[in-house]
């Protein structure tokens, strides 16, 4: 499968946003598959091959705590925001809001120019 320049731009754009979305959802404990379902339900599509390593990387950075739980003969690793993770989520949320506020008028202006 070839990756077009447009796909690369999309991937770059999504990379940071996905980390933010994962951190936001992990205010509550989730295991890998349930987190993916939550993201899908929120309208965010993500491959499992991308999501699971992303969770691990966030955990390695100390942003997530994790624990194994056993239920109905199945073991699952649950993740939840750590204290550091909560702090980073707050910072990232502010950054996202600031970017979004700055970007929205630009995109609206662009759409208006195209419409003319």
């Amino acid at each position, binding site marked *: 499968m070839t990756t077009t320049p447009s796909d690369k731009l999309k991937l770059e754009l999504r990379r940071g946003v996905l980390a933010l979305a994962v951190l936001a959802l992990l205010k509550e404990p989730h*295991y*890998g*598959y*349930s987190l993916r*379902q939550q993201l899908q339900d929120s309208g965010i599509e993500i*491959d*499992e*091959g*991308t999501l*699971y*390593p*992303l969770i*691990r990387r966030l955990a390695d950075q100390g942003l997530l705590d994790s624990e194994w739980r056993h239920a109905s003969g*199945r*073991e*699952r*690793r649950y993740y939840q925001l750590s204290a550091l993770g909560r702090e980073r989520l707050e910072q990232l949320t502010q950054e996202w809001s600031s970017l979004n506020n700055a970007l929205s008028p630009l995109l609206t202006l662009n759409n208006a120019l195209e419409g003319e």
Partner: protein
Amino acid sequence: MDLVERYIAAVKRELPTRSREDIGRELEANIMDKVDALEEQHGPLNQQQVNDLLLEMGHPRTVAREFYPPKPLVSVQLMPIYLNTLYMVLGILFVISSLEVATRWLSGSEMTLFLLMKGLLSSFLNAGYFAFTWVTIAFIIMTRDNKKQQDNDSCQWSPTQLPSALNNWQHIRLQDIFTDLASLLFLALVIWYPILRPGPDIESIFNNETWTVLQWFTPIIAIGVVNSLWQLRTRIWTRRLLGINIGVSSAFAAMALWLMATRPILRLDETTWEGTLSVASIELSVLVFVFVVLVISLYEVIRDLRRLTRL
């Protein structure tokens, strides 16, 4: 679930040993969750459906790479310094190899041009492999140890420290400096070898008159060597460096013209070359070589004069 186990094993094989079991265990739990969810919707999965599910996960190597992205041996921050060091070291080795082979050639052990070039290549490659390996290992260690230091270093700079060189041509390439250096030292060795060589006296390859003039030409060669070493330090063409280069190139052009006018250039013993090459053809080859030196020197004089007017 044989396919799932095979898949997990394939991912684990691509991971560092310390993380294999942990990531494998978690990945298996995640895949089994998905299998359960699909079985709830469609009933027990057959081999093809499990196959499709794993295809959707991605190739084991790709998944492993997402967990542990490959780290370059030499970091991006160190790469320019690494390449610069490598070129410098290889350049110095080229100069040393040239001198070593020239010494062997002048002592008479290798007389043909082919053997001379072969000797130079072989000597340079042997030293080059060794140098490449050690320079690379040193930078791998620096990449592992000095990551924080690199970040600090890149913050400690000032625009005023940047050289005022606005033209692209002002940047002097390392290979140009080392080629000049090797050529100049080679020439100096060819001229002075009969005097400097310990042991019984040997004759110069040049005829007496040419040899005497070439000995008087040595200060120009010395200026050229110093100029090359100074270029190595600054790596930027300045008015002063261009001026010196014009002087050296003009002297070389004048010497080449004189050599072409004063023949024979070499002292050739016909009996030594009997059955291989004629003395006339060797003299002609040297003449062509000197002509090439003349053309290159004149080209450099004109090029540097034009550059000087643009600075």
